[in-house]
């Protein structure tokens, strides 16, 4: 167990070192997310005012899009020079590799959200600070759910052809519960009369989703990565 965590942290630290040096993923993902927000603004702002609930939807779609981009790129780094095979050959429990990559992606997406969430709130006049704790929990659980499924699929698609387009094709239908929960939960908190009970229900579902799909991913990572 200790060795499992050590390997996971080692891989996460490696990813963060590489990222801290190039900042490629962070900057491109961040700018992509901001661009996405901007593009949606043209679709959902009428007469200078955003349509009802637009902020929640735009925020989560931006996260999902940016997340897909980041997932594809972070595994492209493992594919380049075929390092992934070296990782898989090492005497480590393979799920530890999965956890390491997941942690790295979460740090990256978390950083992106720190910028994008306030930006969306600012642009669409969303009262973000009214329920800060619930908003943060919702974002955290939603991001974990999306990244947990995404990391597994991005990892297994390394060996596949047309992986760039297959990642979103596989990922979006499977993460629809996360998107719905994120959008509806955020909307419940941002509406004029915040619906705390509804937000809690969505957070509960997301927590359940996270547990089920992280377990399932740890369980399937070994067989899907074998040959």
């Amino acid at each position, binding site marked *: 167990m200790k060795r499992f965590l050590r390997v996971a942290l080692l891989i996460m630290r*490696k990813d963060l070192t590489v990222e801290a040096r190039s900042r490629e993923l962070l900057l491109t993902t961040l700018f992509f997310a901001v661009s996405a927000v901007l593009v949606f603004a043209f679709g959902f702002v009428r007469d200078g005012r955003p349509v009802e609930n637009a902020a929640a939807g735009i925020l989560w779609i931006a996260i999902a899009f940016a997340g897909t981009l980041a997932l594809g790129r972070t595994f492209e780094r493992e594919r380049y*020079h075929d390092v992934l095979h070296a990782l898989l050959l090492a*005497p480590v429990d393979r799920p530890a590799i999965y956890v390491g990559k997941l942690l790295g992606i979460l740090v990256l997406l978390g950083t992106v959200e720190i910028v994008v969430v306030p930006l969306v709130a600012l642009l669409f006049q969303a009262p973000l600070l009214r329920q800060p704790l619930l908003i943060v929990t919702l974002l955290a659980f939603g991001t974990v759910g999306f990244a947990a499924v995404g990391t597994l699929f991005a990892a297994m698609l390394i060996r596949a052809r047309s992986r760039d387009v297959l990642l979103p094709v596989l990922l979006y239908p499977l993460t629809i519960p996360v998107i719905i929960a994120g959008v509806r939960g955020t909307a419940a908190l941002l509406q004029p009369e915040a619906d705390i009970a509804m937000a809690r229900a969505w957070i509960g579902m997301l927590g359940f989703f996270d547990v089920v799909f992280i377990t399932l991913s740890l369980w399937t990572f070994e067989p899907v990565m074998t040959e």
Partner: protein
Amino acid sequence: MPRSLAHSTSNGVADFDRVSFIDVSKYFGRRRALAHVSFECEAGEIVGLLGGNGAGKSTVLGLAATILQPSSGQVRYGGRSREDLGLALNARIGVLAHELQLYPELTARENLEFFASLYGLDQGVDRAAEALARAGLMDRGDDFLDGFSRGMRQRVALERALLHEPQLLLLDEPFTGLDEGASMALIERLQALKTAGRIVILSTHDFEIAEMVVDRAILLRAGRLTTMAPEGGSLRDRYRDVTPRVGDAGGSG
């Protein structure tokens, strides 16, 4: 095939003095990569896999490295299978692949330290430093791999594969793209491993180099072992005796 978790926690050392391929076949769909291949490699031996493109050399190495699973037949390590040995087997195998298998965004030292930790080695920092010294790159250790020549990268990659002192070393076309000096240095390193009682299997299509390094050559043609006169004449001549047209030896690749 799920690998046993028990082996990862018990620091069991899997030592073996021979690797045996017993009637191994490997298919990718309908395409046959390897058919009924049997051979043995013993400790203190450098074995060369010879053959043209698509002859099955990389498949043999992949099977020995446990990256691939045989469609039929068995690969045994000192009489035990990979299922018996679990993760302890991975700790005893080193692979120098055709690709570099290093991160270009990290320095040579960081790459080595990363893999030392991944293999759970004690004193990873020292080991990485020693490996750099062996590669003759002490002063370039903190440079990124992008700036290295092909030969220098190859040396780092080789030391990466040898960090955990594997009992079985598998090298896929290690001499490709190396100049005279670099090839000689690699040959020297392999000879030292041989003396230390390791099993070395390398693939190559370069007969002159093979002549210099290998103790025994295994000839592959279209996924099959081809027997070659054990003695008499150069490898190239003996190879020509069993292959009517060398250019025809392989498949599409």
